[in-house]
């Protein structure tokens, strides 16, 4: 396994390089620059500012300088958030986004697998149609609808049960307090629960029809052993493949959820950075995201092989 993992990580270096190069040049091709939106500066000051950030040099040279700094782990200063380096911005924002994302994915995996299994065991019965119907709704309603609706219902109006008033914070991070996490995590998790439960149901239905499940039943094993020991492990394989990229997406934050709930994560950097032509910030979050995707896909592949002994590391 280790040689395989090392080979995969080494193989990711060219991939990362291509991603960095593409992002870098695409950003520079886009019209405008980081300081164009500011009020007009005298030419000599603007010249000095551009020189300070190496923007007066040819693009190729800028790229070489950027790569050189990157090798030292230096992502450069942010052009827009003055007095912050990109590394600092990510260091502050990433843990927040990652904590939200991780909570959401754990919730989604647990609920998604359970619901999918239950649906598969009651295939074409009311339970199945109910779960799958809800899942369909979960997939089709976008987060920019669920987020404000939930914030409104639980945060603004509140719920009133048995004479108790039940409120959740409608926004803010509050240092990551549990109450503040409930709504954003729910919003992030809902579509994932839906997708995972549909995946699990599909593969579970197939596995339950397989010859080896029939063999297990013919052996007179109790139902729970047939399902958990013989069927579920094989049924989880598609989920594992899906989770690699899905987790990378969730950990690096969501613009919508972070904006609506006012959470200081890195999700909004993608869009803000791109609009402001904050070259270094965009590069930083892209590299961060790409690294997550690569590592998590590797983890997914290794997990896949552990679940299915027929898969060899090749």
């Amino acid at each position, binding site marked *: 396994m280790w*040689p*395989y993992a090392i080979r995969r990580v080494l193989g990711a270096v060219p991939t990362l390089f291509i991603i960095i190069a593409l992002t870098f040049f695409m950003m520079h091709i886009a019209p405008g620059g980081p300081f164009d939106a500011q009020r007009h500066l005298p030419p000599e000051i603007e010249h000095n500012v551009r020189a300070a950030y190496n923007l007066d040099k040819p693009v190729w040279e800028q790229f070489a300088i950027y790569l050189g700094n990157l090798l030292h782990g230096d992502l450069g200063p942010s052009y827009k958030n003055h007095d912050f380096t990109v590394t600092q911005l990510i260091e502050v924002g990433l843990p927040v986004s990652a904590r939200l994302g991780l909570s959401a994915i754990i919730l989604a995996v647990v609920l998604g697998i359970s619901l999918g299994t239950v649906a598969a065991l009651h*295939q074409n019965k009311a339970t199945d149609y109910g779960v799958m119907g809800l899942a369909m709704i979960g997939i089709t309603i976008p987060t920019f609808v669920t987020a404000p609706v939930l914030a409104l219902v639980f945060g603004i109006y509140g719920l009133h049960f048995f004479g108790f008033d039940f409120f959740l914070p409608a926004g803010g991070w509050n240092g990551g307090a549990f109450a503040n996490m409930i709504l954003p995590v729910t919003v992030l998790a809902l579509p994932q629960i839906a997708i995972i439960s549909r995946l699990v149901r599909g593969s579970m239905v197939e596995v339950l029809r*397989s010859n080896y499940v029939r063999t297990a039943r013919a*052996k*007179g094993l109790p139902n729970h052993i047939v399902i958990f020991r013989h069927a579920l492990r*094989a049924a989880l394989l598609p989920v594992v493949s899906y989770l690699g990229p899905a987790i990378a997406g969730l950990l690096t934050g969501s613009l919508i959820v972070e904006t609506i709930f006012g959470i200081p994560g890195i999700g909004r950097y993608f869009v803000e950075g791109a609009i402001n032509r904050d070259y270094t910030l965009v590069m930083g979050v892209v590299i961060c995201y790409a690294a997550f995707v690569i590592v998590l896909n590797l983890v997914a592949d290794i997990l896949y092989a552990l679940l299915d002994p*027929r898969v060899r*590391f090749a």
Partner: protein
Amino acid sequence: MAEPILQIRDFNVLFDTHDSEVHAVKNLNFDIGEGECVGIVGESGSGKSQLFLGALGLLTSNGRATGSVKYRGRELLGLPERSLNKVRGSKITMIFQDPLTALTPHMTIGAQMMEALRTHQHVPRAEAEKRCLEILDLVRIPEARNRMGQYPHELSGGMRQRVMIAMATVCGPDLLIADEPTTALDVTVQAQILEIMRDLKKELKTAIVLISHDMGVIAGMADKVQVMRLGEVVEGGSTDEVFYAPKHDYTKALLDAMPRIDRPMRKGHAILQPLSTIGAEKRLLDVEDLKVYFPIKTGGFPVSKVKPLRAVDGVSFSLRQGETLGIVGESGCGKSTLARAVMKLIEKTDGAVVWSGRDLSDLHGPDVRKLRKEFQIVFQDPLASLDPRMTIGESIAEPLVTLRPELTRTQVQDEVRAMMKRVGLEPGWINRYPHEFSGGQNQRVGIARAMIVKPKLIVCDEAVSALDVSIQSQIVDLILNLQSEFGMSMIFISHDLSVVRQVAHRVMVLYLGRIVELADRNSIYEDPRHPYTRALIAAVPVPDPKAERGKQHVTLASELPSPLDSRAQLSFLKSRMIDNPDAEQYRPKLVEVATGHYVAEHDPA
């Protein structure tokens, strides 16, 4: 008479489908006695498998069983799952066809065996392990302790089926239901598995239900036989009665249709024309020292080695016009690779293929395509080898459109209709799709597609292997009739030695990419010289109970060695073997022992 183990009365299996209710098993009544072996014979769709799945509550959710199934006087139908599980898997166990998919891929052999034992008999782990080892020994699995830690995909097909048998035997059942236990296996492996089952019956007094489409397998094993057709038992009785005095027409037809290795023809069916009446003496095809190697990567990062897999390793033969050459051998012997290399469907590594005096090595691109007018191939799986999105008319017409572009649309249509009629398909079906047809009909389409350009050579690659006996017999008839009409040469590849005896003038036996014996069919079947040929022929069961019972069961002791091991080809010439898996080894030469009868060098028995 003693109380039967299993008593089946008025038993029915029904399935709800979208259109209607399918009655898969109809009003069955029979008993299975203590220590008895009952054979259930039938073709696909006869309900023979659904019968016991229904009896043990294993039907899919749209199926239901009615009537009565009593195990030692106790009704099984309608029992709650929990009570049924006390019998199922413990007193009555099952073995399924295709042990690769029937074993859980992510659990070790040991875990799968022990869970059965521990669920039913609550024995401690150490005790369970000991019992499993004993049973694995009983089914003759070498290195049983290591096998317990292996996963199903790490074992060969024969070993997996032994594991299935061991798993089904470990709780000491009264009744073992074996559903096509040897169907996907090579004949020599089949013989070993049947031998193991025979021993179980003798030593443990286990009653066995043997479900099979193969009358030969049933003949050698069963005490009683039930013949099923379309959900009904058409005939039942002792094995001798059913085989020697069949009463029902279906049983008779089935027995006649069955190709027998001990006879060159089937009763009442087409026969192979002698070469003198169909062909000239002209040699059409010469294959010289043909080699096809595939590079196989062994070992992983950082050091990997590439070893050649010698799929075909120096094969020479010739084929005359109108002649049929049968190629037989077990899976992995290179028979399909050989044929595909001859047809230039895959690249050869070395050697020469000379077609009508022309060396095909120099042909490229368009020339190869022109060659297809003279070579055609019929594949094994008729449905999978036809494009599901093309009508059968389009499929049949395609070679004609490509290879004879001068024909007009109507001419092509006329040719297709004529050929459809010739192969026994209604010309009016021209616009239908493959999924609308049965396997036999689709194979007729495959044959029509191959025959439409009137090729000089047809390769039949396991062309009848996936078909039911009666359909197989019809397709064999069709092939033989087409040959006597059109006089084409054929290479007929099959793992089934009995079928090859019916269709081939000469027979080549392949073992790991090399010829071990090549002779005309009567010499091969009546006077086999090579120990491997002998073992192969002896392993084929004959639908004749007395002959089968009297048979000395000589089986090859060992498994087929890995083709990556250079010693493998010398299994029958150990005296010349260099004991190093990577060494360059001696290649056994072919010796002409009688006119036209070639046998590879081998150690005397």
